[in-house]
């Protein structure tokens, strides 16, 4: 019988398989950052162990780093200690590190692909749940905890139960102005935050095939937000073209061998999935969240729902709590929700295409009074490329803040945070209570909606701007 994409990649990495035990899986690439690694390195030191494969390990600084004054020492002493600890650990254990100020520094999930280290058919892990991003290349990629980080450092393997398989097939074509972010938010609103639990999901179908690599990364990035173990997309010519000539991509004859192998990484015609979901891309519209988990979303054209709209008792209570936290009234049109801060960035939407899309929309407009617009490139390389293309000027001229690379306002861990009660439209991945700062209120949006919202000061789509101008 045929096998699915994920089964093929899984099978290729089984070091040891015994009945009644998880498989021992080989890890091709281990990404490290400052937050989830210090206790793992400390564990190695205490056990007198070393990093088995420093040559399959790479580190960068992203969660704690400031996006202003990033050429100066980090002001917060606790953050500075954590970053300095990573530097010491990288040196002691021989791990390649791209520190703040380095041209390859950035959000770990932006750095891997742009270096060409993320390739089809690999197993990739990181002490960060958005490691699922790398599945866009046809890799099995997932987030792990610090104990597992230590395990991978010491053994280059992980013990893992084989997940079930799920296909999400998206037929048709996404309408103009509707992006991958709208698609994944729509999907999560249908499945809930636990709908993917226990599955490796393969996104497939015409609408997925038509997506760029960066858009595919946005989709796979948010797999974890509906609970999936990992998300994957089969590699194709789009994938190969993206990887070719990247710094760490295979070269010469090795490239040909690699591509020949990558072409075999597709789900066989006669393979079966444990579960299948089918979506029609034509029905997807700009989508935003109203609540405090990524599944609590509605089309931008809809209104804030009422707890009475939910039949399930838990969902009803969750909706009540979410509306109170978010300070929203049921029945308010989403388009009338005032936004204090717009955040464009993160491992979900902090890549070149996201910046180009937003710049294109905001060009000739100005950020609304009473709203601030933070533009944070996902990596130093994205920042430099954007500056070469003059995008920073477009943002600055429009009244936006142009920042250095990092996780920034995606999570309340560095100076970029929301104040209590402050409301954001954010291209990041989580609208949890307090995620962007204690008491902060987050609406997840696409880069298109982010840019239009910055101009109007209320949740908006680019189509709304045309109306304003006319």
């Amino acid at each position, binding site marked *: 019988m045929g096998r699915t994409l994920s089964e093929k990649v899984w099978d290729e990495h089984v070091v040891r398989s015994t009945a009644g035990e998880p498989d021992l899986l080989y890890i091709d690439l281990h990404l490290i950052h400052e937050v989830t690694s210090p206790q793992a390195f400390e564990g190695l030191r205490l056990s007198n162990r070393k990093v088995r494969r420093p040559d399959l390990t790479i580190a960068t600084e992203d969660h704690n780093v400031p996006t202003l004054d990033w050429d100066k020492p980090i002001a917060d002493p606790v953050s500075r200690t954590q970053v300095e600890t990573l530097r010491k650990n990288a040196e002691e254990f021989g791990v390649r590190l791209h520190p703040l100020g380095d041209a390859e520094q950035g959000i770990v999930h932006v750095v891997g692909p742009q270096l060409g280290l993320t390739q089809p058919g690999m197993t990739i892990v990181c002490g960060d749940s958005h490691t699922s991003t790398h599945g866009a290349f046809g890799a099995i990629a997932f987030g792990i905890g610090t104990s597992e980080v230590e395990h991978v450092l010491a053994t280059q393997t992980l013990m893992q139960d084989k997940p079930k398989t799920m296909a999400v097939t998206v037929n048709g074509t996404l309408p103009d102005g509707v992006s991958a972010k709208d698609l994944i938010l729509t999907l999560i609103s249908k499945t809930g935050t636990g709908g993917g639990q226990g599955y490796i999901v393969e996104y497939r179908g015409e609408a997925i095939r038509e997506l760029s690599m960066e858009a595919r990364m946005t989709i796979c990035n948010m797999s974890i937000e509906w*609970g999936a173990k990992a998300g994957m997309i089969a590699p194709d010519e789009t994938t190969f073209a993206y990887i070719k000539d990247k710094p760490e991509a295979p070269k010469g004859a090795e490239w040909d061998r690699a591509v020949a192998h990558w072409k075999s990484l597709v789900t066989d015609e006669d393979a079966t999935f444990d579960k299948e979901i089918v979506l029609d891309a034509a029905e997807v519209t700009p989508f935003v969240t109203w609540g405090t988990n990524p599944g609590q979303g509605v089309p931008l054209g809809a209104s804030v729902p009422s707890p009475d709209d939910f039949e399930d008792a838990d969902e009803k209570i969750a909706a009540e709590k979410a509306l109170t936290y978010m300070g929203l009234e049921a029945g308010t049109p989403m388009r009338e929700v005032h936004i204090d801060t717009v955040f464009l960035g993160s491992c979900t939407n902090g890549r070149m295409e996201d910046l180009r899309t937003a710049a294109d929309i905001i060009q000739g407009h100005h950020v609304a009074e009473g709203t601030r617009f933070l533009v944070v490139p996902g990596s130093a390389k994205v920042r430099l490329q954007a500056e070469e293309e003059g995008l920073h000027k477009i943002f600055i001229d429009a009244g936006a803040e142009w920042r250095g690379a990092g996780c920034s306002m995606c999570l309340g861990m560095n100076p970029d945070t929301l104040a209590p009660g402050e409301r954001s439209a954010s291209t990041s991945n989580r609208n949890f209570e307090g995620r962007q700062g204690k008491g902060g209120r987050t609406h997840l949006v696409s880069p298109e909606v982010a840019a239009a919202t910055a101009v109007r000061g209320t949740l908006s789509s680019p189509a709304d701007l045309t109306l304003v101008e006319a």
Partner: protein
Amino acid sequence: MDKFTTHTGVGVPLRRSNVDTDQIIPAVYLKRVTRTGFEDGLFAAWRNDPAFVLNNEAYAGASVLVAGPDFGTGSSREHAVWALMDYGFRVVISSRFGDIFRGNSGKAGLLAAKVDEKVVQKLWDYLDDNPGAQITVDLESRTVRAGEGVDAIEDSFDIDDYTRWRLLEGLDDIGITLSHEDDIAAYEATRPSFKPVTQHA
């Protein structure tokens, strides 16, 4: 890791669903480089509220948390497990856990016991009626028990065989894996040369 066979302790009803790991411990508490001392970050935003269940003295010294579905979703931070353990919890009972959280629990020695939603409801009602009451969680027999007499609650919970065995034995994963070092080396010898490396000679 300490062995875990059976545990009896005060149960706390956390009547919330979708308690993500940002709620369990906000990111601002993740800056430490140590392995202990995370109890102050546990449910940090909610603990300011005097009505929050952990602020109810009846539940002082609690060690068994009974939570709504989708507990521990979101971020991979193992600090969420550490914060629960540093506070004194040994067991979390829920009908559904985030995958990474459940995995992290097994590694760190926190028992994540998956039960039917109805069992969570029964335990919540029991704990509300009897604040400070104890719950027993027996890993050997995979059962959770509370109360006495006709109203006694006894039901089974799910945990995968391998994690159960490791918790019962208190085993260290890395040690187990390194006993298969030959298999790892043999696998490495077969890896295709086109796979990327981060360091070049």
